[in-house]
């Protein structure tokens, strides 16, 4: 299937939509994570609207690229991206974390078609991606595998088991992205359990390491391009981001890791992002068919 054909400007606008979706769905659910989803919105948009070859109309498309979020707690951005990309109608976002509805607190394959493997326990995703990459290569499928990790998550030893495995098997069809927002639940990553020098660690595990501003769409496009070019090595993009990016009072504050904005905060956040809770909720409610949501960029 043809890639979407979007300009950097289109992608920036779509990323803004994704951020608005995140705030609006959290305002409704009043439960869930704000910080990581907002820091992941830009590279997430680049992945879903440019880099990845996905086919929401045919989930089992054998030529599809596969993606997996090892940080299952960032479901607000995962679902916003899926909704905008046409996996399901945007209106579904308003059922996030509710008993009725198909959008669980953490990604669930059997509740949300399009999720390849469920997650929510940290540190396991890169291993899953390794299996996808190796299995695809065994079958001679020209697919790429994308795995999103967190920076606090780097403290899980299983990630280093997977890092060793991917390099040992030269999985160059594998590209990992780390949401390097320098925060985790209990505070600054460097205070909780320092992971620096992170690039040296990944190099020591024989990966192709790419560092980029995780909010600079052009830089991200280039980073994914570089990753594609790497031969004989898996690539990891250290995306330097800001937790809560896009909402002034959330930015760089770890306290926003796991809480939603209340109604007033959501109003302010959406105002900062050029819309209102009412207007944006109305947009979500009006979107009842699964398709690339109206807005920036041409349809696929």
């Amino acid at each position, binding site marked *: 299937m043809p890639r979407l054909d979007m300009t950097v400007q289109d992608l920036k606008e779509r990323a803004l939509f994704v951020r608005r979706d995140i705030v609006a769905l959290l305002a409704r*659910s009043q439960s869930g994570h704000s910080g990581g989803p907002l820091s992941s919105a830009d590279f997430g948009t680049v992945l879903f609207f440019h880099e990845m070859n996905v086919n929401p109309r045919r989930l089992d498309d054998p030529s599809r690229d596969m993606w997996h979020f090892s940080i299952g707690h960032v479901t607000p951005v995962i679902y916003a991206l899926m909704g905008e990309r046409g996996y399901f109608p945007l209106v579904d976002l308003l059922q996030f974390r*509710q008993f009725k509805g198909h959008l*669980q*607190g953490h990604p669930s394959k059997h*509740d949300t078609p399009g999720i390849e493997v469920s997650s*929510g326990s940290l540190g396991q995703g890169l291993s899953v991606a390794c299996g996808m990459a190796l299995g695809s290569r065994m079958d001679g499928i020209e697919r790429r595998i994308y795995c999103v990790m967190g920076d606090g998550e780097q403290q*899980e030893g299983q990630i280093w088991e997977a890092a060793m495995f991917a390099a040992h098997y030269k999985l160059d069809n594998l590209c990992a992205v780390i949401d390097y927002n320098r925060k985790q639940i*209990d505070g600054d990553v460097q205070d909780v*359990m320092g992971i620096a020098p992170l690039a040296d660690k990944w190099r020591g595990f024989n990966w192709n390491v790419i560092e980029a501003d995780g909010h600079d769409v052009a830089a991200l496009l280039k980073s994914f391009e570089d990753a594609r070019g790497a031969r004989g090595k898996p690539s990891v993009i250290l995306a330097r981001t800001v937790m809560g990016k896009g909402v002034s009072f959330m930015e760089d504050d770890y306290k926003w890791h796991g809480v939603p904005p209340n109604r007033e905060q959501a109003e302010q956040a959406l105002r900062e992002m050029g819309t209102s809770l009412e207007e944006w909720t109305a947009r979500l409610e009006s979107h009842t068919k699964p398709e690339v949501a109206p807005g920036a960029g041409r349809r696929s």
Partner: protein
Amino acid sequence: MTGATPAAPQAETLAPTLAKPEMKRTREGFGHGLVDLGQKRADVVVLVGDLSGSTNVTFFAEKFPERFIQVGVAEQNMMCVAAGLAATGKIPFLATYGAFASCRSADQMRVTVAYTDLPVKIGGAHGGISVGPDGATHQAMEEIAIVRSIPNMKMIVPCDYWETRKATVAAADDPHPNYIRFGREPVPVVTGPDSPFTIGKANQLREGSDLAIIACGVMVYEALVAAQELESRGISARVLNMHTLKPLDAEAIARAARECGAIVTAEEHQIHGGLGGAVAEAVVQSHPVPMEFVAVHDRFGRSGKQDELMAAFGIKAPDVVRAAERALARKRAR
């Protein structure tokens, strides 16, 4: 052995409180229990895996920062660091979500902690379906089965704030490893600061002779509500708070089987290998009687509100009442 314990509230006294119970978080009981310990014992240290707030170990961290150890997101390491600390004479308490405490570091709990028999105390938060919106991955419902299977381990599932606080203090005095399971949301308070708590001794909260309801955790409250409803139907139900799953109070269970002739177990845990399984093991080895299980039927949890989920998964008081009716019918049919 404790039968009806004097200080334990009786049905009459419970009635009003059951209607509008005081709601308190068991995790706060854990947090306050740690503070009680911090004041009375210098050897108690606390470890956490990047979950200070939701496990309430912040209470301890604020008062005893020099005895608080942040481990980050590394449960395997946390379990073994605790073991190493214990080897130097500390009484380490570690805290994370029960799903990870019981599963992510199970091998470390088995080999390094339990086989060495070190006094590591494991605080498993977010136990049960009542965790709510986080959903299945964060709703721990296998801990009782896992921990019971490991030699040298003890397993405690307190029923409310006060009991969790007491269990936490008692855990430190036990020279062996043990695991305390507690939850996220506020749950009814059914015991008081002075009600008795001894690891391994069940507390009878209500006298009864037609059948016995044996419960643990938040289900103790549901059991008391069910017992009251049953009373209105002319059925006398004994209620046992089986706060310790291992070592199990087999004597209290055998007595309940003998004196009541039918048993219903109620737990916020998978149906295989939990409280129901533990009681069944004791019953068939002492005095076999019909049993019905109120538990999660071997399904993963999902997102939702506490009550909505407990109802959907069939573990509210009405489910206990229905189970009691089934058990009684089987008892009469024998």
